[in-house]
């Protein structure tokens, strides 16, 4: 198919057919990652700049691995090593990068809308690797891929997103994508960690985890940041974990064969019990593996878009 999008800023840009196409492509690239020699030449000669203005282990390495396995040249830039720390504006930094003629810039930034801001100013593809509290489309796609791998399809399944919804780009993108793919989504968090206008998201919201978890097929835990306690949004981590830590006994109230996800990095004992994180119901490492498959698919779709059109 001809890929219609220049940039990937959020899953809200994608139609259901687009999302299905990405998951289908990810499946086709999965096989490459199990070969003894994990490299194919389909993006040879393409260059991808990985511009991460925020710390990242999984996403950055995953894009790097994905690009290299497709033979693209990947270049890493971090905020601390960029002229941003000298006071250069984001606009000037990315225009400088574009002048080096990359085929794509993968960017993570701490400000919501930063990916859209640069996409409006750059000719190359922009892939959002997380912007502020706004969106993390590749995480949502890899989560959907992970669940699809487990279930065959997410249609009709119920997914609980648990934890700091208000400040989570992962939650925002997952609510949109999972709903688009036909899953039923519900949320559970203390009110201090919910967006003010969450009622407009049209999904059930719970404050009692034992009630929220009842009958669900998957629980997606989110990372709790200590700064939320410092900002007065929570009494302390101990109380948070009493109310909202996902545990094996709580999982027993979910549907049979229910699974647990977490985008990482995890705080064992805060948002997910350590034994559950390591249990067979945990898909945390499957998510990491899916991340490479999905990002290979995305790089392929976005970097060969022009050739396809021509």
């Amino acid at each position, binding site marked *: 198919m001809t890929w219609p999008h220049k940039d990937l800023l959020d899953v809200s840009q994608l139609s259901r057919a687009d999302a299905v196409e990405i998951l289908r492509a990810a499946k086709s690239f999965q096989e490459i990652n199990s070969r003894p020699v994990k490299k194919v030449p389909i993006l040879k000669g393409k260059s991808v700049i990985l511009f991460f203005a925020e710390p990242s282990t999984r996403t950055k390495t995953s894009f790097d691995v994905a690009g290299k396995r497709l033979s693209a040249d990947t270049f890493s830039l971090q905020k601390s090593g960029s002229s941003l720390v000298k006071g250069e504006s984001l606009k000037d930094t990315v225009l400088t990068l574009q002048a080096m003629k990359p085929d794509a810039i993968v960017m993570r930034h701490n400000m*919501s809308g930063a990916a859209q801001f640069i996409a409006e100013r750059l000719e190359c593809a922009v892939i959002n690797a997380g912007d502020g509290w706004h969106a993390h489309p590749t995480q949502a796609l890899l989560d959907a891929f992970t669940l699809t791998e487990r279930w065959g399809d997410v249609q009709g399944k119920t997914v609980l997103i648990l934890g700091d919804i208000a400040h989570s780009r992962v939650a925002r993108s997952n609510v949109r994508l999972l709903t688009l793919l036909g899953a039923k989504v519900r949320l559970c968090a203390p009110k201090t960690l919910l967006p003010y206008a969450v009622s407009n998201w049209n999904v059930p919201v719970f404050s009692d985890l034992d009630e929220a978890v009842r009958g669900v097929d998957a629980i997606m835990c989110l990372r709790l940041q200590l700064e939320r306690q410092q900002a007065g949004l929570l009494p302390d981590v101990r109380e948070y974990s009493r109310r909202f830590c996902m545990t094996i006994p709580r999982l027993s109230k979910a549907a049979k064969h229910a699974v647990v996800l977490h985008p990482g990095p995890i705080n064992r004992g805060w948002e997910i019990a350590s034994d559950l994180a390591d249990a067979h119901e945990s898909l945390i490492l499957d998510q990491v593996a899916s991340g490479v498959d999905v990002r290979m698919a995305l790089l392929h779709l976005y970097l060969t878009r022009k050739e396809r059109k021509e």
Partner: protein
Amino acid sequence: MSQADLVVRSAALADNPQASVDLFVAKGRVLALVPTGSRPLPESAKSVDASGLLLLPGLTDVHVHLREPGQEWKETIATGLAAAAKGGFVNVMCMANTDPVNDQASITETMLDKAARSHPKGPRLFPVGALTVGLEGKTLAPMEELKAAGCKAFSNDGRPVADTELFRRALEYASDLGIPVIDHCEDPHLAPASGINEGVVSARLGLRGHPCAGEAIQVARDCLLAEYLGVPIHLAHISSKMSVDVIRQAKAKGAPVTAETCPHYLILTDEACETYDTNAKVNPPLRTREDQRALLAALEDGTIDALATDHAPHAAHEKETPFDEAPNGISGLETALSVTWGLVARGELSAKALVSAWCVRPAEIFALPLNRFQEGDPADFILFDPAARWTVTAQSLVSKGKNTPLLGRELTGLVKSVYVAGKNTLLTRESS
């Protein structure tokens, strides 16, 4: 009686467009406003044909940021007053958050000197002095000195005073001097100046929102203090229904509060931020349609006394950043009357309320020159073409601040002439 030296012929009054009038002016003051042709034209008088145009008293803007001294790349007193003249303003009150802050007479005097030199024929500049030294909210500014230098009000605008005890003392001290206090109503703990309303749009965009309660709580504090102390407070740039409700209750009890809102709150909602458009980032933020309706009703019934632009110019590169990084503010002097006249044309606001809110009430509240078209009033007036259409572009604005979400939008209604004390400051339509 003096002989008229200027006659404006065949104008229509903004709030009574069927009536054609002639305005006689002598030595910078109104001599008479009479039905067209009812009084002979003196041969020696300059005559202006105003047929097809509306005649309004000059507009007063009690809330602008002129950025000088300190941030002249955004605006200067000269460019800001030029923008004010183009917008139809004859009186302009500029806020104290310059660099250095206007908290001493020498700064006030410098501002007035620059205004007199760049715009000797007006618009007139009336500086607002700082309420606290450096706007830091710790020590009262030397208000008597600032008054003597020419300040017409005091305000901590931009950095609201969170310490209620200090704010109370500032109100008492200012009232001794007979000078009103303007408060920027924002609980700085509840409502960080994020530039977007807390609601559906902020939740979707992943931006921290500014709750309307953060404004209304401070409005309530101010209303209670005004009532308790019996001293006036003017509430700046009110943006929400919740605040309007509080002000209405306070006024009903007789609290000496007055309030203003701005054109952008009347025609835009937080949906203008949907694309992370930093030109729509303003503090307080654009709210909802429900808030708009409440503000319009409050203007109509006088709960909101005045309109003000909160003209806040910024350089293009300062706004060309991600939303969170961009400074708050909309450049508003030149679009203000066209935008609000559009509300009149659509029947959402009466012409009477518009004239009251732009011309009469702000001048009354701050004891500034006021033209009611009575004999002896200052001949401050504008001629406005209600049918002229123009498109807002960076090139069409004389302000250095091109930061408006209205860029590219066609507006109806254009200021053709601005007279300050009988002198045309625009010189576009005068004939002799």
